[in-house]
């Protein structure tokens, strides 16, 4: 049997997932495209090809083409569960749900569905996640889980033995700290419900903010020197006063050598803006990792959408795609075995009854 000499089998599975074929395809595609870029540069500059700038540019082009490979590595390394959380899982979760339309497509709009997916029985949690694009809640919740299971429980289970034979553990120290008074607990609950209300009413989707800010940044950058002109037309005039310097015959402005930042923005513009235009995320989805693979449902859904095209907006049609892996990640029982959940306070303001 062929042995993987580079990595032991368990770690290669953890790093690269069950199949590496899609990674191989991406890697070979990026190498081939970089070689074709070399060919283009060679055609353009002939024998003088081979300056330091050429290699620098090629390196960044290769990295940019390789991003699909790297993102696939990140997406498929998401084998963490809430019982066994890992830092890589946190990175994968944060990235796929906010920057790429990766294996998790858009979130469902229905708070009940979201609450079910994150393993909570409270619709309020679903509301919060629908509005703030679930960044603050599940990612932080996941990070908390990571801290609890990977750091706090191991530390708390350490026992110190004194020379006299008595044992102390960190848990016994922490139990000496008095628990918060009922009044304080009430205050915390009220603050939590106010926070819920605030985000439900005024919260913006983080993933839409990221996409919009990126688009605006590209537009401002590409306006370049015309920026001041546009500003003047709009009515803002922040530009410096025009110089009254005398320009002799033959005077010319030396064109600046473009900075690395300029080149990177030039390289990244097409892919990023194309992805934002079609999918509203800054990196493209991976079609094979997109959840929801019922053929008949998709075909029938398209037929249905043609009959009710006027009433259903295209956005809401896309938004009902469920996300698969997240369910694996979070519907696992999120309570670690040693933690006892206090009974839920009944004085929480329920926001499900409110009409929007």
């Amino acid at each position: 049997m062929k042995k993987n000499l580079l990595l032991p089998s368990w770690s290669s599975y953890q790093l690269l997932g069950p199949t590496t074929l899609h990674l191989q395809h991406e890697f070979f595609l990026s190498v081939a495209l970089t070689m074709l870029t070399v060919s283009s540069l060679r055609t353009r500059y002939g024998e003088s090809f081979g300056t330091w700038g050429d290699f620098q540019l090629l390196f960044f082009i290769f990295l940019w083409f390789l991003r699909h490979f790297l993102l696939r590595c990140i997406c498929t390394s998401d084998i963490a569960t809430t019982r066994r959380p890992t830092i890589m899982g946190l990175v994968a979760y944060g990235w796929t749900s906010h920057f790429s339309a990766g294996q998790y497509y858009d979130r469902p709009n229905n708070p009940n569905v979201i609450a079910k997916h994150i393993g909570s029985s409270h619709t309020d949690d679903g509301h919060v996640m629908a509005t703030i694009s679930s960044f603050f809640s599940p990612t932080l919740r996941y990070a908390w889980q990571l801290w609890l299971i990977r750091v706090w429980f191991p530390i708390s289970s350490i026992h110190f033995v004194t020379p006299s034979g008595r044992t102390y553990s960190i848990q016994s120290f922490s139990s000496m700290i008095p628990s918060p008074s009922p009044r304080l607990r009430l205050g915390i609950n009220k603050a939590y419900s106010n926070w819920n209300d605030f985000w439900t009413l005024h919260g913006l989707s983080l993933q839409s903010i990221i996409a919009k800010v990126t688009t605006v940044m590209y537009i401002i950058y590409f306006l370049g020197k015309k920026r001041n002109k546009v500003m003047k037309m709009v009515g803002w005039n922040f530009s410096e006063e025009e110089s009254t310097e005398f320009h002799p015959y033959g005077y010319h402005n030396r064109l600046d050598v473009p900075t690395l930042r300029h080149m990177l923005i030039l390289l990244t513009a097409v892919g990023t803006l194309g992805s934002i235009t079609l999918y509203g995320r800054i990196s493209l989805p991976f079609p094979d990792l997109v959840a929801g693979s019922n053929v008949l449902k998709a075909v029938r859904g398209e037929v249905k959408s043609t009959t009710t095209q006027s009433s259903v907006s295209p956005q809401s049609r896309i938004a009902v795609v469920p996300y698969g892996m997240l369910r694996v990640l979070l519907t696992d029982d999120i309570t670690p075995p040693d933690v006892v959940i206090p009974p839920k306070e009944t004085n929480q303001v329920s926001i499900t009854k409110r009409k929007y």
Partner: protein
Amino acid sequence: MENKFRLICKIASIRLFEALVISAIVPWMGSTCRYTGHCLEGLSFIELSRILHPIGIIAPYRDDLLRRSGTSFGLSEFGCVMWITISIIVTTLSILLAQAITLNRSYLGTMGYIAGGWTIVEPNDPCLIGASSPSQWDPRRKYKKGDLIVEHSFRTRTIYKATSNSPEGKPLDISLRATHLLFSDELGHPSTSTVIAYCSASQVGMLLTTILLILAAICLGRGYGSLLWIVGANLIGSYGILRAVHPPYDELADLANQIKA
């Protein structure tokens, strides 16, 4: 929910466009020339002429500024750029198609089968004789096997026939037609795939043509450096495609040994 084939097509088109811009257009841009240090003093020759022309210099003394061609075998730069562009299109599309086939094989195969519920009928087909004039497609109606419908689009009149009871999907849907055409026979191990065979054949075709061009360039005594890079890229692309269809002989032998024991 859109079907996955359409998703694959959209993403492939964006990635193809991006590859064309980065690999074929960016190397020819003025800012790239200045960044890589090929254009002296940060000025391209066209910009220099603005200053040099008034003082009497109308052409450069050395001609290496004008002749920047690595492979000037008659077709010159233009032909080479066209060939690079074709290679980019073929390599990107074939690898992405092979990837889609390898990873979404059962989905695409099932969709190809479902999309066969409607077939196009030729106007002189015998089944049209004596049949009542077909009506327009109604998504709410249930069709039986042998029912005919008509679609008017772009001044053409196409007649579709149901090949099964209650066929799925729209009759006139380009993505469904394409899936049926491409993937209806895709089943089993990737090494039996027709589409992957065509993808790798296109790569090999590109490879052979480029080698012929190199031979021509050698005969004509011209440079062929950039063509060699195209050969390399095509080799890597075809290796990437064929990598998926290797049957894992070692693992199969291992399995056979385990069964025997």
